[in-house]
């Protein structure tokens, strides 16, 4: 069982998030980064599948500037067997399709049985990369997995639907599955794992070797929602005031 886990590096939940001068993203030098928490569950699921099957390989894959190698090494410390780093120095939060194409161009030669991703990234939160890669590589695809079972050349996946409903689907391998957070308990990297990680291979794919598409989507502006306070004094007699209140309740507050 050969499994790729796509791991993104995102700003930590306790990091300061100042905007950059062009207001197109956060000001990266001031941000502290962490492994995207949903991807941590995907990594754990990959390690558990490998342990249950009894053999195979888990490969930690990440794309971005040099700093993202850190999350690959964290994956290696937790038990992934090797890493693949796709160098990409332009903005990576903007365009899931071009990012999926980059991943697909590298992953297709590896013939993975399974590609796992977290359900979404904690920063941009688009939730599309895993699905798009599945489509680009012609893999069977499922999202929001809360349980997985490998059965011969198939994988059974329990998906979380809306309103407390679940769905079991059976997919032929190879497959690309996005993992719902909370389905397992991610392990801590042991000191032995951390010390051993530096001996594991990280294959570096230079930007020129994986960028197969122009970006079709860019971020125009990032902003913090403004909270405003507006007071309206309703003038006139009771009938006029009542009519105005009715209008507000219908059109502004939308409770009628």
């Amino acid at each position, binding site marked *: 069982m050969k499994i790729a886990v796509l791991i993104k590096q995102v700003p*930590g939940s*306790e*990091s300061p998030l100042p905007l950059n001068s062009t207001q197109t993203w956060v000001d990266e030098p001031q941000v*502290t980064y962490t492994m995207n928490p949903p991807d941590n569950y995907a990594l754990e699921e990959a390690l558990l599948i490998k342990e249950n099957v009894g053999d195979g390989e888990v490969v930690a894959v990440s794309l971005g500037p040099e700093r993202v190698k*850190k999350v690959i*090494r*964290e994956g290696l*410390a937790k038990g992934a067997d090797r890493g693949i780093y796709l160098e990409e120095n332009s903005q990576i939060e903007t365009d899931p399709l071009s990012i999926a194409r980059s991943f697909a161009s590298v992953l297709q030669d590896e013939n993975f049985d399974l590609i796992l991703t977290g359900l979404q990234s904690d920063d941009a939160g688009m939730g599309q990369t895993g699905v798009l890669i599945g489509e680009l590589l012609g893999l069977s695809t499922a999202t929001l997995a809360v349980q997985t079972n490998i059965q011969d050349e198939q994988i059974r996946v329990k998906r979380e639907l809306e309103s407390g409903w679940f769905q079991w689907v059976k997919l032929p391998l190879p497959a690309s599955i996005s993992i719902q957070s909370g389905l397992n308990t991610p392990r*801590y*990297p*042991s*000191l*032995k794992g*951390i*010390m051993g*990680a*530096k001996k594991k291979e990280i294959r570096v794919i230079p930007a020129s070797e994986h960028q197969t598409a122009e970006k079709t989507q860019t971020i125009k502006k990032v902003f913090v929602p403004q909270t405003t306070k507006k007071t309206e004094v309703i003038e006139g007699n009771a009938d006029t005031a009542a009519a105005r209140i009715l209008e507000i309740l219908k059109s502004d507050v939308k409770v009628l």
Partner: protein
Amino acid sequence: MKELGPDFYNITDLLTEEELLIQQTAHDFVQTEFMPLINQHYENATFPMDLVPKLGELGFMGSALPEESGGAGVSNVAYGLILHELERGDSGLRSFASVQGALVMYPIHTYGSDEQKTKWLPELGAGTKIGCFGLTEPNFGSNPGGMVTRCKRDGDDWILNGNKMWITNGSVADVSVVWTRDEDGIVRGFLLEKGMEGFTSSDIHGKLSLRASVTSELSMANVRVPDSARLPNVEGLKGPLSCLTQARFGIAWGMVGAAVDCYNTAVDYSKERKQFSKPIAGFQLTQAKLAEMVTCLTEAQLLVYRLGRLKDEGKMTFQQVSMAKRNNCAMARDIARTSREILGANGITEDYSPLRHMANIESVYTYEGTHEMHSLILGQEVTGMAAYDT
């Protein structure tokens, strides 16, 4: 450190990626597995024994020792960062790890026979066996050379008699490193096993400090052990004192962790707590306290960082360790108290950590060489004159 506490002098930039990941791992472990338990254990005066194998599994026991000695072969700075995170949780947790790693695994690794190493180190490292260290006696604390515990040769065996006091993990230890004097006055170390005839322990109750830690008295009444129980590769006080140097190194790091927890708590609280027209963080009196705290913390961080690198290079002296232990205990003691002041009345409840740290630090300030003894060690180093009986 950057995301885990104040890092005013960018010390994070001096750490390797591995060291940072190790600190992050220790931090996550303590916050997730230990913090939900600490108040209950502190109140009940118990230690969360269930966590011990988990600490071992992660490699936190004696982690700077080589793998074949039950450690993980990490740098001394990484080891210090682990203890920093354990003590950010509670001094009881760090004390456990210090005793196991520095006072039990270290002497067996350094002075033990191959048989002793094989028997104890893997399980001590894995956290499936627990150790303790018996040096202090009811009447001999700062003056361990005065110890009255005796070992006497009897054929191929030794007979041990005496009492050891203030022994962390004494009653739960599977193996005790006990220091004694023989008939010629030579200090010798022995490994005593739980349940040996004549070897008993009793816990010390009523502690108002280090409540989440087992503290015991050990008693030896004609305990007969074979010569194979003796640590064969050391004689004299340098045996136990070299262990204390290892433990004090960890304490100096741990104290920074406790102080960071207090400082972070105080800063967060001061920004939210409004009195008069604004948060108390906006008042000069609070800011003066915070400025003093962050300065002292930064000094302490720099001391242990440099000390760790000196240890990694094999250049650390015990006097340098004394300076760090002495300074950082006093620093943490002051910061815990000042943090409690900033928290006002809320600071006396268990909802906030500073008062618990403050009570713990009273023990740490005094054990492993009192503040005063470390002053004398430094005084002797800079003057060449000992101000105590030698």
